[in-house]
């Protein structure tokens, strides 16, 4: 058997076989491993969350994707003053304030506190001048109180963004941040509308967790 044949055979075995052969007859570990490897390499597609599905759900909802994980829906569980608590089907809780994650529950490492000075995105967009900031993050497991993170926030541009099933003009705000001591750094992105409502964001909330991608699919009623 020559090498060319093997090169052709491998993809056949590992990818096509899933559909050509009754997959229940393949040892389930292989099927799951292939799905996992595909997911890790190319990420997961959002093909199960449709506008129709969102419409049928009588609650405010968002799509949450963590790192390269599969996207899933989170539902608004409660609303108190300016904090929203969202929950996923696997018991992850996220508390948002003005579109920013300020608390989590259900991860191996949770954000239990977030402190910052007032964030005025409207002023930032109007002035077009970047502003520096200092935030403090607190975590459990392992417990850490008030880790200082400093950075710069700026308005980048207004752009048309594709949200689930529609296009919308939104302002892009970027935050570059870092903690020099442990070498944690990154960039958060927020896409907001004229009312400063955050429709879409990419947020880093802990050095131990991957980035969070959030897209609001049904806005909470105020």
């Amino acid at each position, binding site marked *: *058997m020559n090498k060319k044949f*093997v090169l052709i*055979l491998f993809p056949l*075995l*590992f990818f096509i076989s899933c559909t050509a052969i009754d997959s229940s*007859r*393949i*040892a*389930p*570990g*292989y099927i*799951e491993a292939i799905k*996992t490897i595909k997911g890790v390499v190319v990420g997961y597609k959002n093909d199960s969350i449709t506008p129709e599905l969102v419409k049928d759900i009588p609650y405010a909802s968002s799509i949450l994707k963590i790192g390269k994980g599969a996207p899933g829906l989170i539902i608004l569980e409660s609303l108190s003053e300016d904090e929203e608590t969202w929950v996923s089907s*696997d*018991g992850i809780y996220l508390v948002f304030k003005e579109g920013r994650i300020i608390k989590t529950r259900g991860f*191996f490492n949770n954000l239990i506190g977030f402190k910052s000075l007032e964030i005025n995105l409207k002023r930032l967009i109007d002035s077009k001048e970047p502003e520096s900031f200092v935030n403090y993050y607190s*975590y459990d497991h*392992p*417990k*850490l*109180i008030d*880790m200082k993170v400093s950075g710069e926030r700026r308005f980048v541009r207004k752009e048309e963004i594709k949200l689930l099933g529609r296009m919308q003009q939104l302002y892009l705000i970027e935050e570059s941040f870092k903690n020099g*001591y*442990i*070498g*944690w750094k990154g960039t958060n992105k927020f896409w907001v509308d004229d009312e400063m409502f955050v429709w879409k964001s990419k947020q880093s909330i802990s*050095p*131990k967790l991957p980035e969070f991608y959030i897209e609001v699919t049904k806005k909470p009623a105020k």
Partner: protein
Amino acid sequence: MEKRLFLIIGIVASSFCSLIFSSIDDYFPHKTLSSPSNYGNTGLLEIPNARFMEQASLRFNFSSSFPNEFTTLTATPFSWMEATYRYVEVKNQNYGPASYSRNQSFKDKAFDVKIKLLDEKYYLPEIAMGLRDIAGTGILSSEYMVATKSFGEFDITAGIGWGLLGSDNSIRNPFNSLHSSFKTRAGDFGRITGQGGDFRYSNWFSGPAALFGGVEYNLRKYGLKLIAEYDSSDPQMNKNPMVVKNKLNVGLNYHLSDAFQLGMSFDRGTNFRLSFSLKGNFYEDTLPKPRPKNVISLNYEQKKRIIEDPEIFYRSLNKSLRDETIYIQSASLKKEEVSVSVGSSRFRSVPRVAGRSAAIVSALAPDDINKINIHVMNGDFEVATFILNREKFDAAKNFKGSASEILKRSNLESNSNTPLILNSSFNPTINFPEFSWTMSPALKHQIGGPEGFYLGQLFWKTDTSIKFRRNFSLYTSFGINLYDTFNNLINSSSSSIPHVRSDIQDYLSEGKNNLQRMQLEYMFSPYKDVYVRADFGLLEEMFGGLGGELLYRPFKKNYSLGFSLHRVKQRGYKQRFSFKEYETTTGHASLYYDLPMGISAHASLGKYLAGDKGGTLDLSRRFHSGFTLGIFATQTSLSAEEFGEGSFDKGFYFSIPTSLFYSDFRTGNISFGLHPLTKDGGSFLIQHHSLFSILGDSNQDSILRDWSDLLD
């Protein structure tokens, strides 16, 4: 007085705070903890330190330079012990004559062990002692005692070495004053002193000694570790002399993640070395698994109907259990108690199967029921019965009690010879014969042979089973070759005893498309705690025949006794239906004993496939996650010369539950076992469904070990 009081309160408060709040240092993106030395065990570059991996860790390390290249596997069965298996490739030496090993370079196998003597204290360093190449050819044999102490980001190591590590001969051997035998070392370190396989105790800590030391500096922000060491080994005196321009080695390690490290170093002022290591810790399952599914309790009207028509209960039970991938085998609903026997290939933990089943039974059962009996089956054997108090169980499920409280009001039993399936009101219909099959790609390996370090085969494996009735099945397994490198095998066995295993090369090269197994099997339990298995057919790749085994496993004891006996004939190399002339009777009496800390001992005495008589001792440790590490050794009536290289059969194995890599439960394992050499002496017949493998992990002790899973 007041000032002193404030001072005391301040000290207490600050120490309390430090207990509550851990440091920001825990949040560095990469940990720069222990890293492997070139030899695989934890250390600096050429020298060891007193650090260890966390217990239940496995590390693969590859370290390449010229002329020595090291490929190692290191495991920590305990937090105080590290064991390393190593292949050394000496690139500028040949394995043997070209007719024997073509142009393959010289390879040597070695086994190391390191033991922690003292944990690091505020003032005291961590102290360890170790042995390198303890039963090998002696090329790298060394012994050492070493101390390591951290000072902030620095880790300072100093030690004394013997053997190759003592070849600098920089100090007088401190053991000389204890006994004159420590003054000399038989043979020369760094030189092959025989075929290997012997423990040369008399050489340990003997001969010249030397001091070594080094420093590691952690740049954790960048995941870097900088290393400098004084290397006391003197390769100029080695079998294969190397130029030494400098005794100082320097290097750095980059921690790409907690699991993956890259390293580079400059050794002896002459050679660059590159390395990488992959580490996993399997002490516990860190991936969250699905919680039990919610089962909505039946209302009063529905429960009333169940009392009138139990069939509704059985059908509801069947459906709800199926949602948890638990399969009902039989059930009986009585006035005050319900008994259900269940089987599941999804859960490894027996209490978890029982707990999830009991939760469903409780949600569906009439209110008068106060006792829930869950009979857990593995295959067609009933392995344990959980007699649960419903009130306590429901309270604990509603966070008003605990698993321990359930245990106090529950009983555990095993009635293996009177299982519920033989005496129940409901038995799901099974249409015999029941046919099932699975298939998957699979690999075969031949590692470390003279023809090549790695020879292998990728094949398509198909397993089928026909169950004629409960406990009576025909298992078939066949493989179709996809790709292999076994044609490179050129050396036939020269063993002077029957070639029961050493003809492996002929089996691999001629039996690429093979019938691995076709085995008829019958199992039953004639008496309480007594199990019997009889088998007939092509039992394994090299032998066919008939025989059986008997296991006495007293459920409430921590031991089991086994006896197996087979009359077998050697199969043809093509592994189809032909046989060779050699036939023999083989059998063993076995004692299985559960020791504390998850350690299991398995001792067996008997006659092996080649006709040699002797005993095997197998010691393993199983962690709560299911991860198992084990070693074994066999000594038989064969002399070291008859056995050949290695002197006696020995090896190691590990088994990692696949569920540790997935977000759902599953029962499979990734298993790896290694005999350094494929020899005829001390060879067992391979038994695919040994009774202990089916029943060994379901006695009372095992159930109590996993009892907290009952509510999970």
